[in-house]
């Protein structure tokens, strides 16, 4: 069924009886042309673009839990394309363009809201840096505006503009950035892939690879052996474990990143705001809850939960930026397992095993990358060559020295 205003009206008048399950639940077949491991945002987007852009529909997505149950459900839903080094700028630029047309493309409401993302500056030096970053973003063809004190004050009256330690000098605004409904992104791609014939197989954990003479032949799963000549891994957070089964040695550590949401409040924040003097970012969901997060907990973790010192640190930064949030009650917190790469940038590339392709190392940037990650990974799997939007996200860049280190912190995953 195609979703439309007419369908909503019709079902509204007929007791909502016309809605059907959005995707099938097929049993795995013994063989496919392509297997995607991981039914999160990136895996589902990859399957969708394999079918839509490349006509490859004999595809299975294998998910060990339920669709969208990993990091696509554990983020702060922010979409932006404000990177500043080659390799990342063109990739995230392509992602933002896909975000803008996604809902019409897959006919599903992902609640994409281009409410703007502003990075605040608190010193002259930081204003200079944002001018430079804004120029890099505009050179790429995306939008960036440097705002002065009064413009920021008018748009965001509730911030502590005259804070003694961190006064707000201005900010870099990207109006096309914003937020999207994270689960709906996964569901939209899942439905789009299913409609094109892709089998979405849940509760199916990969337990091993079949590799013959350096060539991948299939996977062992909790639901039996499934063969395929091409296999793509999109399991960020667990890349090291799945990769290890295929003998991959990866430049990745897994870390926990926490995020938090308050009770619903009246509208106070029109867009996404990032604090420039501490790692803190905040937006207001459509339900009214303030959604915010900060830094990693700094140590390796697969626990999908963090510790209290980082909660305290994040709240301190929030209070410095926006003292009024001290009155809000926090409802929930959650932790996602981040694939932290050694330069803070992702990897979409072939592996030393023929027919096995790797997508991971997304660090903090996985959600905003979802559409372009799927688009470029599908291109790589279908054609064997990197997409023109992702020519530098290569596995061997650490050996060759062509690292993409936005933060300039070196091979220290917990500092990116």
């Amino acid at each position, binding site marked *: 069924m195609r979703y439309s205003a007419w369908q909503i009206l019709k079902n509204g008048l007929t007791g909502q009886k016309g809605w059907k399950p959005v995707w099938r639940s097929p049993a795995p077949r013994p063989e496919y042309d392509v297997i995607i491991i991981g039914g999160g945002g990136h895996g589902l987007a990859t399957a969708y673009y394999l079918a839509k852009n490349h006509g490859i529909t004999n595809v299975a997505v294998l998910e060990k839990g339920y669709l969208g149950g990993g990091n696509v459900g554990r983020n702060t839903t922010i979409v932006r394309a404000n990177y500043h080094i080659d390799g990342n700028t063109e990739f995230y630029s392509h992602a933002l363009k896909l975000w803008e047309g996604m809902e019409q493309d897959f006919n599903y409401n992902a609640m994409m809201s281009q409410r703007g993302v502003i990075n605040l500056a608190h010193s002259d030096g930081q204003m200079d840096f944002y001018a430079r970053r804004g120029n890099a973003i505009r050179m790429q063809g995306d939008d960036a505006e440097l705002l002065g004190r009064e413009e920021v004050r008018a748009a965001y009256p509730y911030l502590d503009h005259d804070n003694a330690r961190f006064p707000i000098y201005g900010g870099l605004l990207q109006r096309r950035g914003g937020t999207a409904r994270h689960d709906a992104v996964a569901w939209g791609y899942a439905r789009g892939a299913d409609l094109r014939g892709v089998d979405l197989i849940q509760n199916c954990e990969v337990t091993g690879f079949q590799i013959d003479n350096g060539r991948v032949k299939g996977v062992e799963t909790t639901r039996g052996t499934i063969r395929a000549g091409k296999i793509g891994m999109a399991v960020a957070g667990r890349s*090291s474990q799945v990769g290890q089964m295929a003998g991959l*040695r*990866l430049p*990745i550590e897994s870390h926990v990143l926490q995020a938090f949401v308050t009770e619903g409040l009246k509208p106070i924040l029109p867009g996404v705001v990032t604090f420039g003097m501490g790692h803190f970012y905040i937006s207001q969901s459509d339900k009214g809850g303030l959604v915010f997060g900060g830094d990693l907990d*700094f140590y*390796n973790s*697969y626990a999908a939960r963090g510790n209290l010192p980082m909660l305290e640190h994040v709240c301190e930064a929030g209070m410095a930026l926006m003292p009024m949030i001290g009155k809000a009650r926090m409802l929930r917190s959650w932790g996602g397992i981040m694939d932290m790469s050694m330069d803070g940038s992702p990897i979409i590339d072939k592996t030393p095993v023929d027919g096995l392709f790797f997508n991971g190392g997304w660090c903090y940037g996985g959600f905003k990358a979802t559409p372009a990650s799927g688009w470029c990974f599908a291109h790589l799997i279908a054609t064997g060559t990197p997409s023109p939007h992702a020519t530098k996200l290569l596995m061997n860049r*650490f*050996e060759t020295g062509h690292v993409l280190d936005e933060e300039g912190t070196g091979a220290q995953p917990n500092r990116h």
Partner: protein
Amino acid sequence: MRLTCPHCGERDAREFTYLGSAKLLDRPAGDTGAEAFHEYLHIRENPAGPNAELWQHVMGCSAWLHVVRDTRTHVVESVSLASGVAR
């Protein structure tokens, strides 16, 4: 999370900073070649389970510590001085 420093006793994790995998203790000799340094600097086992790692007691005695900690549960299994770890 709390770590038991061999010098200072059991202390809150906030007194410590984290560097990373304890494999950083095994720095290759200068003439070993680029491949060995790539392996040392970039490649990580990243286990889901006991992980050997380096912490420093910066808000205490400043000692570098070799800690074995389970990455699934955050349970600390052992803490010893990094200087005493056999290489």
